[in-house]
């Protein structure tokens, strides 16, 4: 039995290594710069770390700006997703109304489609409206990706909060809006912040729509994609590291909510 136990733990550790080692090695390449990338054969322990390449990469015209734009787009997408998704989720959780199922179906339907691709025809309309090549335009498209998720998850969040608490607040003279804001929201806040972080990550990572809807004001993903063919490996890896750092941090922040959220959102 101990042999099987050891094998089992070896398997768990091996999978952890399978996930972590490639990320570590990308970081080693990004921080080590050209000497590490050109090294042959690579040393077992890539320890020469300096921030020179990363700094050099950040100094390229447009990189830092692309990061800021990517950040701006992701923040806007988060705000839109929460602002539009929470009320809709609340309505689904608390009221039974005609059309509720149709709305649910509409939200689920978006999942059967590759939403990012729908950015293709939007360029024309966006140019006309002055939204093309602006962070706002990309953020709107990204919200179409994140909103269905925000609606479904917040619906189940609110469902888990007992209705009685709200009713008690009404008895004490709160209006429905006050009750929702003062009683329900504080309880839903951890879940809501997880929804927000997910919307941020969805937007931060999206490549296709961001590339199609921008020309000069590119997000970090769109910028990297556009320069892949003409930049040295050291810059590509530095860009990759900048791209993954926030995501890893954010997933760490929402790790507790991951399962509750996906269990619900994928039902």
């Amino acid at each position: 039995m101990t042999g099987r136990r050891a094998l089992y733990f070896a398997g768990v550790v091996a999978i952890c290594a399978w996930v972590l080692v490639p990320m570590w090695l990308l970081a080693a390449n990004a921080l080590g710069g050209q000497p590490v990338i050109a090294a042959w054969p690579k040393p077992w322990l890539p320890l020469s770390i300096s921030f020179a390449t990363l700094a050099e990469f950040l100094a390229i015209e447009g990189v830092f700006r692309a990061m800021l734009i990517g950040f701006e787009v992701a923040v806007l997408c988060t705000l839109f997703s929460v602002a539009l998704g929470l009320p809709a989720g609340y309505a689904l959780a608390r009221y039974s109304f005609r059309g509720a199922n149709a709305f649910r179906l509409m939200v689920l339907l978006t999942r059967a489609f590759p939403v990012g691709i729908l950015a293709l025809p939007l360029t024309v309309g966006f140019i006309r409206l002055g939204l093309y090549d602006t962070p706002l335009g990309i953020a709107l498209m990204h919200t179409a990706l994140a909103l269905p998720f925000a609606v479904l998850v917040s619906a189940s969040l609110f469902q888990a909060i007992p209705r009685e608490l709200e009713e008690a607040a009404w008895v004490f003279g709160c209006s429905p809006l006050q009750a929702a804001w003062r009683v329900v929201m504080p309880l839903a806040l951890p879940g809501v912040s997880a929804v927000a972080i997910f919307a941020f990550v969805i937007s931060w990572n999206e490549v296709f729509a961001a590339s199609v809807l921008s020309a000069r004001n590119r997000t970090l993903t769109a910028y990297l994609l556009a320069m892949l063919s003409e930049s040295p490996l050291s810059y590509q890896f530095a860009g990759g590291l900048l791209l993954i750092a926030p995501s890893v941090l954010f997933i760490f922040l929402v790790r507790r909510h991951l399962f509750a959220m996906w269990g619900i959102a994928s039902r």
Partner: protein
Amino acid sequence: MRGRALPYLLVAPAVIFLTVLFFVPLVQTIALAFQTTNGTGFGNFARMADDLNFHDAVVNTFRFVGLAVPLQLAAAMGMAMMLRHLGRGRDTVLWIWTIPLGLSDLAAGLIWLAMLNDRGYLASLLFHLGLVSEPQSWLTYESPMALFIAVVIAEFWRATAIVVVILVAGLQLVPKEYAEAASVFGASPWRIFTRITLPLMKPSIQSALILRTVLAFEAFAVVIAIGGRNFPVLVSEAYNWQNFNQEPAVAAAYAVVVMVLSLVATVVWLRVLRTPEEQRA
């Protein structure tokens, strides 16, 4: 106190938003794809199909989805079952295993480019093992098979995590009593897994497959990061037609093909893995 209009007011902004930024572009994409200089027709599809890369893109996309998605499901199933036996440290292991789900396919492509490029870590490992003596240039148009494997590995590495999360969440809903009862009657662990756990997890397997298939049809940045333009898939071709050839109508034709494939895949998974009402856990 509760106005009848209130739920509608709460839902309306989301409905309007999805209409404008999902349904309208959906219809526009289809319209654009069928719009030609002389009226409507299949002209753009004909141009798409006549392109040199089209055949490769179709074949590559199907090979990619057909290999990556089943691999992800099988691995995620194994990982979900492993997690059940983990006591202390489960949270940490879970976090590590699910990190890749927060990464973009572009980042995953760059990570595996670092691993697999000619002076990359795999080549170095093989050198240290004495299997090769010089840098290996695998990721070129001369070795499409190596490119294909590299892309599948990158996508497998990245997107297995989301399947793990969906399956673990589903596993939590499966009552333990069934498996315990079967075990009392002497069923082997494998038999319990195939006859009890697997059927009860059908709904989560179904949603995982739908999600992954649709997203795998859409993957393209990973392909460009690893293979440049040497490994065309449908969406990377749509991107090229839009950005480099400035032909939105042909790009839209590609988009329609991808949409139809996604929709067909969804319907197939919905039918094949349907759970009858009385069997729901």
